[in-house]
């Protein structure tokens, strides 16, 4: 019965279409949330499209693998086991099978696609999307930023990375000492960035803080600050002391000083 095969594929297609709608909404919501976070930390927000696309593709793939007939049977108990049996025997032309097909066709007419969608969930997701969009607009408009936390976080990450590298270097040094080889002299700080933060620039003798906001693509020139003067504290170690040289204390008689002076003058001239 070719007609029944068509019915089965139509049911499958309709159910998958219906199931994909909430999945797409999930993907959009995920995109907006990641966009919001990236904007807040002043990172490139379009990167949000990558996890959202991956998530949406995964969900669509998962939904397409769902046994749609079993799903229909779940919502319509009168079709339980009947629909999938009829689908398994779609190509069989037999008295019993034909009777089964006609029974199923009769009952399938009552199947409504709206049953498979939870309106409440859809509305909730749409509402969340609206709220997320509103927050994104607000962040952009009011220039709300959590970049300072980003810097702190980045510094912490750098410190952690340095610590890990330092431990690694110490281990390497220890190993090389154990093997009798001399240390290379390249310390933990060798890999450190000695040029400072990249977003700092100098104009004349003044230091400028230039901030680039990825969400708005606007330049924000920060406050021009005078270079801070720092006073160095003298903190000599206790064991360091000054003492006069013995040569300065040599007592040359005054009448001989002229002779010595003349000697050194001659030496310098020659």
């Amino acid at each position, binding site marked *: 019965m070719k007609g029944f095969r068509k019915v089965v594929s139509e049911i499958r297609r309709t159910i998958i279409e219906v199931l994909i709608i909430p999945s797409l909404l999930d993907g959009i919501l995920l995109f907006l949330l990641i966009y919001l976070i990236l904007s807040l930390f002043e990172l490139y927000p379009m990167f949000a499209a990558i996890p959202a696309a991956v998530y949406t593709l995964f969900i669509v793939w998962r939904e397409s693998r769902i046994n749609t007939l079993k799903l229909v049977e779940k919502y319509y108990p009168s079709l339980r*086991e*009947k629909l*999938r*049996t*009829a689908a398994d025997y779609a190509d069989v032309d037999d008295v*019993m099978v034909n*009777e*089964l097909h006609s029974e199923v066709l009769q009952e399938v007419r009552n199947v409504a696609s709206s049953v498979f969608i939870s309106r409440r969930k859809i509305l909730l997701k749409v509402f969340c999307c609206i709220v997320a969009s509103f927050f994104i607009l607000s962040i952009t408009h009011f220039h709300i930023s959590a970049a300072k936390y980003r810097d702190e976080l980045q510094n912490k990450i750098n410190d952690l990375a340095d610590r890990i590298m330092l431990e690694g270097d110490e281990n390497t040094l220890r190993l090389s000492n154990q093997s009798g080889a001399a240390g290379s002299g390249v310390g933990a700080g060798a890999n450190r960035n000695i040029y400072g933060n990249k977003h700092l620039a100098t104009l004349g003798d003044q230091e400028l803080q230039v901030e680039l906001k990825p969400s708005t693509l606007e330049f924000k020139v920060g406050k021009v600050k005078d270079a801070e003067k720092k006073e160095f504290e003298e903190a000599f170690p206790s064991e360091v002391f000054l003492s006069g040289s013995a040569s300065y204390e040599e007592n040359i008689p005054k009448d001989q000083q002229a002779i010595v002076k003349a000697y050194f003058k001659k030496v310098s001239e020659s």
Partner: protein
Amino acid sequence: MKNYEKIFMNVFDEARKVVVGQEEMMEQIMITMLCNANGLVEGYPGLAKTLAVKTVADIMDLKFSRIQHTPDLMPSDITGTYIIEESDGKRNFKFQRGPIFANIVLADEINRATPKTQSALLEAMQEKQVTVGNTTFKLDEPFFVLATQNPIEQEGTYPLPEAQQDRFLLKIKVGYPSFDDEMRIVDNYTSEVVPPKPQVVLDKKTLIALQNLSRKVPIATDLKQKIVKLIAVTRKSAGIIEYGASPRASIGLILASKARALIKGRTHVSSEDIVKMAYPVLRHRIILNFEAERKGISTDDAITELLSK
């Protein structure tokens, strides 16, 4: 209403005139017949086992014979034997057909016969033929052996060998009737009114047509897989089962489920059919180990556990 649904309704209505209660037993006997197989009805004496089989034979226009098994019953008493016949002054050997040559054979109290006599039924049950001497006789279609037996623990019985038990599609357990049913039984058989005789509502041709129809009942692939997995699990459950069921059990369970679906007026097999038929199909095909017996686990308990997996 589907035609076959009406037929089964009539059959059961007629059976109810004679056999009070025992609906499940009647249904399972009918399933056995639809599968063109043999059934073993087990229960204590006086539970209408013989009456049920006799009633089924009466309802259907089929040749019925009853073999009362006793320890001195010989195989030739079942299959038949050659006798000397004199005609026109000549003496010839003529085959005298035994009671096995019928459509429904009631092998009453089968476990009272010796193993030799029990095995005489084997060929008939499996091959639907009887070999006496060098001659093989085909049995009439349809052919069923419906055997009854008392629980094997009773004295003077010979437990059926596993190979012979496996040839029975279903092992039908007969329980005691409910209080209301027993009241009706008492009323029916103690009053002056003679219980009505059942009418013939199913002929041989229709029965064969229903047997063919039963095999055509479609079953979903996942349900078929469920059955095969269930049977496979019986072979792997080392905890309580010593020996599991053979592929014959898988075939039997599918056929029995199809027949039940037909009786219930459905055009497909459902999970309910499989669960219901798993007990009579498997209870004589799995052998529990000592541990299970020690714990007092019955085969039905073991099947329940297998079904829950």
